[in-house]
């Protein structure tokens, strides 16, 4: 599958299977948003920010989410923005006014400011939990996908962080600190943090979304603290995530939110089971590569991401030939181990890479 590595017809194609590092770099490039998409998303975000600051003079805006954190995936479908309304500091909040009037004003201001460029713009704020949803009805890329913005109308908390809408009332959060923490992590790790998070978000969306994006990043803050190989960073994240989620849900890394980060559809036990299963697959890929079986390592990585379009599988016949080679080597090793009474004599290795398991040494048979 060396063609996987071919960027153009003129490029030199290595005469060997791709390494995990090369495959991850390839996938990372394929899921990364283009500079043009980013520029257009930021332009629209700036339009929204200008509209909000016109409506709420003396306020400040903040950025959040994947674009602000440098981990956006292609296709880019949304952007996040917040405004901290200065005039509402003493009038709104828990025990005072709810968020409805501020959201209504913000929605109308956005509609008025952007309707000329985006005539089919829709702004929804009623019956939503937190954000005002801005539907541009105009993609930022060549595709047909919709592009939206989540706009939060927030007020200052007297001590730390913000109050953000929670239906008609308020709850605590600290999105500005979240963005600061992620940006520090990106800088400290020389962008390994963002690259690993992007790969993990792609894994997550291709495998039933066990976690929300923010949960992935909150866990990554405790796992990826230095520059490292992508595959090692991913494994470190799985180790940390399994440890943390085995104990409980992930707490707000800014230490502000009243509740931990909620899971999507699966229970915590199911999420941990899935993460352990997929971590094992990642470890198998690393160990297979280290042992000199690049095709099986590639296959395990492709199964891990579950995306045949962006990370195709190696040729199955070539994999089978490599499996046969490994099985012969494993059998020879098992014979040596049996001679040393390390494993029971009447067992055979399990195909693939399951060094802790064996199968009875049976003989396949047939009736006639």
């Amino acid at each position: 599958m060396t063609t996987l590595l071919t960027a153009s017809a003129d490029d030199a194609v290595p005469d060997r299977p791709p390494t995990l590092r090369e495959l991850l770099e390839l996938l990372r490039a394929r899921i990364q948003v283009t500079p043009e998409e980013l520029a257009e998303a930021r332009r629209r975000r700036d339009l929204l920010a200008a509209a909000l600051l016109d409506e709420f003079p003396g306020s400040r805006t903040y950025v959040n989410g994947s674009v602000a954190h440098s981990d956006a995936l292609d296709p880019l479908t949304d952007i996040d923005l917040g405004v901290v309304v200065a005039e509402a500091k003493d009038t709104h909040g828990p025990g005072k006014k709810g968020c409805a009037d501020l959201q209504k004003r913000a929605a109308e201001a956005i509609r008025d400011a952007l309707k000329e460029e985006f005539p089919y713009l829709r702004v929804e704020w009623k019956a939503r939990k937190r954000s005002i949803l801005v539907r541009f009805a105009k993609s930022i890329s060549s595709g047909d996908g919709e592009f939206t913005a989540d706009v939060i109308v927030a007020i200052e908390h007297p001590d730390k962080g913000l109050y953000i809408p929670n239906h008609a009332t308020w709850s605590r959060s600290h999105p500005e600190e979240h963005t600061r923490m992620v940006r520090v992590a990106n800088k400290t790790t020389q962008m390994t943090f963002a690259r690993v998070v992007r790969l993990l978000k792609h894994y997550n969306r291709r495998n039933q979304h066990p976690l929300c994006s923010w949960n992935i990043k909150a866990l990554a803050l405790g796992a990826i603290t230095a520059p490292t190989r992508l595959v090692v960073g991913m494994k470190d994240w799985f180790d940390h995530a399994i440890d943390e989620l085995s104990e409980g849900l992930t707490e707000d890394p800014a230490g502000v939110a009243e509740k931990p980060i909620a899971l999507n559809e699966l229970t915590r036990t199911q999420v941990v089971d899935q993460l352990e299963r997929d971590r094992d697959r990642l470890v198998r890929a690393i160990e297979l590569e280290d042992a000199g079986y690049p095709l099986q390592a590639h296959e395990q990585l492709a199964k891990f991401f579950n995306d045949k379009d962006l990370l195709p599988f190696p040729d199955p016949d070539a994999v089978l030939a490599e499996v046969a080679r490994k099985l012969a080597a494993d059998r020879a090793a098992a014979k040596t181990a049996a001679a040393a009474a390390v494993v029971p004599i009447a067992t055979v290795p399990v195909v693939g890479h399951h060094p802790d398991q064996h199968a009875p040494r049976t003989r396949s048979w047939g009736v006639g």
Partner: protein
Amino acid sequence: MSNARSEVTGGLGGGHRTRGFNPWYATGIAFQVALERDLDAHPEHRGLVTSSLTWPSLEQPAGRLLIYQHAGLDVPGREDAVPVSIEFHESPTYDTYRLDPADYPRVLADLGAASPHRLPGDALCLWYPRDADDRRWTHTVGLIALLNLARNHLLYEGHWRATGGFGPPAGEWLGDEAPHGFPDGAPT
């Protein structure tokens, strides 16, 4: 059943109900403990194995049936995980070659695939019934070992097909093989 999610299906109503309370190897706790031990120790299988107990019915009149279903086994060379079904019959309608039905379940996967080692009904033929206990699978060895046998067998089949199948020249079988049939024509 502690480690596999279970359900009960089927049934012919009151007339057969008392039969369900008669002792049967597959509903015995010793059998289940031996079979399911270590299932939860392997993340690759945890949460993916379900069991169902089927009562006698018009379609399955010969007795109760305990089925373990693995949602998808990872087999090298296969892009998609392979579902595997393991059936323990109270009164097998297939030949167990005088082996205890507890030690001769039907293992079904890849139905219809070309293979030199299948039983009537397309079950995988994983061992020679006349071999000694340590060259066969028995329920005391557990489901993990049986799933690994099935995984190896499916890989052997894939490699055999990729290298020629029925041929000529015939494909290569990577595992040990016993000659088909019995030397004297019948099991002892």
